């Protein structure tokens, strides 16, 4: 039996745990404020808030209910718009109205929920985070400017927010109803009674499985990995970073240690999906999905990460780059799951960069993506690992290109020579994400972009590209 709180109400249900929260909310609980736009996490019309006890305190995250199995709600607080409506409009609702941010109204609730999530979020309230909170919400009517203004307006109101007792401050200022004050206590009282079954389908955040086959998931026996304690957390032991398989993109994004190792982390991860999806999507899910274009896979391939595969009895550790055997083919048995991800802490001579280009810069699947980790010893490339997405049947570790550059002097000549090898390693196909010729050109450009960005004083764009036009 699943147990969670939906708005004010305690829910105990024997409904299939694979059912989506969207269906549960709309068709079992008859709360029609949450809308269906796409059922693939790409529009945000069904955004809800999910509250849970994390690090001993109550934390809320926005999620798209269309991709969330109710099994992942166990022991949590699910908030729909009905759960934040009060007699008077909340400042979020008021701001949207004030700025003319609602036209047909169908996407509006999603924006209201995302912005309310922003108010509840532990992150700083500033313009950038305000916009980030609605980066997963598509509006076809307004052109967003009015919603942007509403988000800024709310941000101003949050400047006095009490960081210590956020929920209380928000209740006092009528952002959320008063029942939120008791939620933490009520959640602690709910026993988390999940059992796992090794023969069932393993689901992390559900952000891919529920896109691919949401119709069959409701009736699938599921082993929910998302909240397993041993699959969560980011730790450093000596010179190695260990991440649980269920660590989400947002967990990485908001991790201080990761941020210190990768100063451009926020910019990189901004290119990856949207806030609600980053709140749900796990690392292991991204790796196992084996999409040729998986962003986090490319990221960790360039870190030359290892993964620990477990079938709960036996464990083995392999390199991520050896995990992929062919299109959607993995070195993994049906029982195995990714328990852990490990990579070496970069030293001070190590540089990292991630590049991604898609049709729409944000909230889109890449036409091509690329990542590099490079260590220099003065001007010599000591270590280098490059990964390319969207150009092969699986996420590709560019072994030949990396090997070629290792030990070479970092200069334009060697990079230009390396491109020839890179082009021989990749084999893009033509599809909805672009023509193969484009993907080849783009991959070259992203490869160049790493060096131009990381070493502006050594490698100039002119040196790599201007000869294009002299001929």
């Amino acid at each position: 039996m699943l147990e969670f709180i939906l708005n004010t109400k305690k829910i105990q249900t024997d409904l299939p745990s694979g059912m989506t929260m969207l269906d549960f909310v709309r068709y079992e609980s008859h709360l029609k404020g949450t809308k269906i736009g796409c059922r693939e996490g790409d529009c945000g019309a069904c955004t809800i808030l999910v509250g849970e006890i994390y690090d001993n305190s109550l934390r809320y995250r926005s999620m798209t209910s269309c991709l969330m199995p109710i099994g992942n709600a166990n022991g949590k607080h699910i908030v729909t718009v009905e759960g934040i409506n009060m007699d008077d409009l909340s400042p979020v609702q008021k701001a949207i109205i004030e700025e003319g941010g609602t036209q047909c109204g169908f996407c509006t609730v999603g924006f209201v929920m995302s912005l309310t999530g922003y108010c509840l979020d532990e992150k700083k309230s500033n313009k950038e985070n305000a916009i980030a909170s609605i980066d997963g919400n598509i509006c076809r009517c307004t052109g967003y400017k009015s919603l942007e203004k509403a988000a800024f307006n709310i941000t101003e109101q949050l400047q006095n927010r009490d960081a210590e007792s956020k929920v209380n401050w928000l209740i006092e200022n009528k952002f959320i109803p008063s029942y939120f004050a008791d939620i933490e206590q009520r959640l602690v009282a709910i026993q988390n009674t999940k059992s796992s079954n090794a023969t069932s389908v393993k689901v992390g955040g559900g952000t891919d499985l529920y896109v691919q086959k949401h119709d069959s998931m409701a009736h699938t026996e599921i082993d929910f990995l998302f909240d397993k304690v041993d699959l969560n957390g980011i730790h450093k032991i000596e010179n190695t970073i260990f991440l649980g398989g269920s660590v989400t993109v947002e967990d990485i994004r908001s991790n201080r240690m990761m941020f210190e190792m990768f100063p451009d982390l926020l910019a990189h991860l901004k290119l990856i999906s949207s806030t609600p999806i980053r709140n749900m999507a796990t690392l292991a899910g991204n790796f196992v999905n084996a999409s040729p274009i998986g962003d986090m896979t490319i990221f960790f391939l360039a870190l030359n990460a290892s993964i620990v595969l477990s079938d709960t009895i036996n464990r083995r550790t392999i390199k991520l780059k050896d995990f992929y055997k062919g299109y959607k083919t993995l070195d993994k048995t049906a029982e195995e799951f990714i328990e852990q991800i490990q990579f070496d802490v970069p030293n001070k001579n190590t540089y990292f960069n991630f590049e991604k280009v898609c049709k729409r810069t944000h909230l889109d699947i890449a036409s091509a993506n690329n990542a590099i980790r490079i260590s220099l010893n003065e001007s010599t490339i000591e270590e280098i690992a490059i990964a390319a997405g969207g150009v092969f049947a699986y996420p590709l570790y560019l072994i030949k290109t990396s090997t070629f550059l290792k030990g070479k002097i970092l200069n334009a000549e060697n990079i230009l020579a390396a491109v020839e090898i890179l082009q021989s390693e990749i084999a893009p196909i033509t599809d909805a994400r672009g023509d193969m010729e484009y993907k080849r050109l783009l991959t070259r450009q992203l490869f160049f972009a790493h060096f131009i960005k990381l070493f502006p004083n050594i490698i100039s764009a002119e040196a790599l590209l201007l000869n294009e036009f002299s001929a």
Partner: protein
Amino acid sequence: MKNIDSRSHTRGESIYVDDIPVLQGTLYAAVFDSTVAHGKIIHLDVTDALVVAGVERILTYKDIQGENQIGGIIPDEQLLASDVVDFCGMPIAIVVAISDEIAHVALKKIKVQIESLPVIIDPREAAKQNKLIIPPRTFQIGNSQEAFNSCEYIFEGTADSGGQEHLYIETQGAYAVPMENGNIKIYSSTQGPTAVQRTTARVLGIPMHKIEVEVTRLGGGFGGKEDQATTWAIVAALATFHLKKPVKCILNRMEDMRMTGKRHPYSSDFKIGLSKELKILAYEATFYQNAGAAADLSPAVMERTLFHATNTYFVPNTKVTAYSCKTNLPPNTAFRGFGGPQGMFVMEAAITKAAEELGISSTIIQHKNLLKENDLFHYGQHTKGCEAENCWNTAIDKFDFEKLEYEIQDFNSKNNFIKKGIAIMPICFGISFTKTLMNQARALVHVYTDGSVSVSTGAVEMGQGVNTKMLQVAAKVFSINHSKVKVESTNTTRVANTSPSAASATADLNGKATELACNAILSRLKKRAAIELSGNESEIEIKDEFVWINGTQTNLTWPKLVMSCYLNRESLSESAHYATPGLHFDATKEKGNPFAYHVYGTSIHIVTVDCIRGTYETEAVKIVHDFGKSMNTIIDRGQIEGGLVQGIGWMTLEEIIYNKDGKLLTNALSTYKVPDIYSVPKEITIYALETQGSENAILNSKAVGEPPLMYGIGTYFAIRNAVKSFNPKVKLALNAPFTPEKVLMALYGK
């Protein structure tokens, strides 16, 4: 005044079709559609689907008692394919089950054997094979052939624009409920309640009065629910007709994307001739419209392409011809702008081509040829209240265009791998349905005995704020508080024979009808007040809910006056009819006065292109827009911003891709990308040019729905200018959308 639905929208309390509480016994319909773009149905086998527990019935064309025909303009489209399928996504059968889930499980068990026939997806290929929806049409003025002889410069070329998915966030859907005596009530997410009523009656073979269509609001329409909401309403109604149960049919996103038509892709040839002074003396264009497999609204869309072929320029010698080409795509349909944008894109492409060849800025040619007062359009109408130059000049001054241009040149000279581009897009858009007869509307106004007011019209609220505007009209005429007026749902039993909410004209047509109805009641009220106050009717005025006589407020309040009318057995209700005056068009001559008025505007676009990655950002769009006397600035600005962004989407990242077999590859939100919050212009500035408006516009507040979409075309040309400044030698096709792929290939193209 804010949109009257704002409060319930933000609280999730607004009701859309799928939010209506379902009645007991409700069944769910799902549509089995063709996976072959063109073929002969050899055999349809539903036996396995029928035995799925919970399946109530499977309907095919054989279950249609009336006509298996949904074509609005031309009867050329079957509801359910009988022997031939013409596009991928064409409905073949309907599964009705006790749940939506079971219906979809059963769909997968239907087998159909289809013998493939040749597939055409290219409109030029269709034209070559003479596969046309209607014979080609030509609009002309002067003699372009002769005029080219006296031109100093002549340029020719080809320009293509792509399709566009409407992507209303609420997918298509309807809920049909059986009423007594075989009547059916349909809750539909449609812009055209009457179209749903008429076509359902036709398919079911019953009179229109047995069908009642009710529309509360739409979660977005943009033209996609003008004609194409009808199919799903009939699907539900047909099942209700046979099973006598309530039936709901809501498409999921992928069904919606593959089964419904989109904005028409166009491929066009142009020839433009200029004098030494850069006056456009002659223009010729041939448009190949990709209509898809059936007419739908394509002939009307094609007509508007011809009307707007010269955009906002005066061209004394014009000859434009359009072909509506029959292909094996889902029938393309109305989409904000309705063919106008496609025509204007070609004109702007021609000017750009000329400017590039002459080595000058397009803006010089644009500026020299703007329409002036009393200029003659190629379709025989003269400009009246022309604001083309006013908008342009105001934009140039207000936004200091020269400085912007200089800053961009300066920036580009200093940066090798980031380039900026600037372009201007002026617009002129005609307001009215080009089919003259459709320019009529009715309103039904009741004043209840407590003084509260109810307004029903044929207008459908889909986010454009038309209900708010209707409320404003009634409140203004009666001079009562907004809270006293309620705008009702749109229902065919209250207001009949309506034109769809389209052509930007909904507020004008329905607002004028509302104004007439309110005035008729007001006149009776005044008469009554005169009697009550023993005065003269001409001395009576109703102001702020009080009766005034000779400029003095009396004790006679609005509710008291209303009650007095009632007690004296006078009607407090009125149904009024409005038809836009002065409209006519002779299709045999292709001349007339088709538009009530024109809307003008000018937009300046600035973009930045990352010349390493091929990505771009729109820095700013600065607009001077001719609102007339805007009756609701919040709503009207919202229309400008939303229309602009939708237009930019069409011109940049929204790319519809069909493979050669006619299968839609961009069939989900993961592959079809509309603008998100990060991809919209960083700055949108709108300067409201207050002009006289038009007496044909409601309260002189000009129509605002479609015109701003065409501003988006400017972003395309700004990107092009940026690309050109990086790679001046590149031979660059005029081919929208300008996706990052095309940008990168152009940056490094030869």
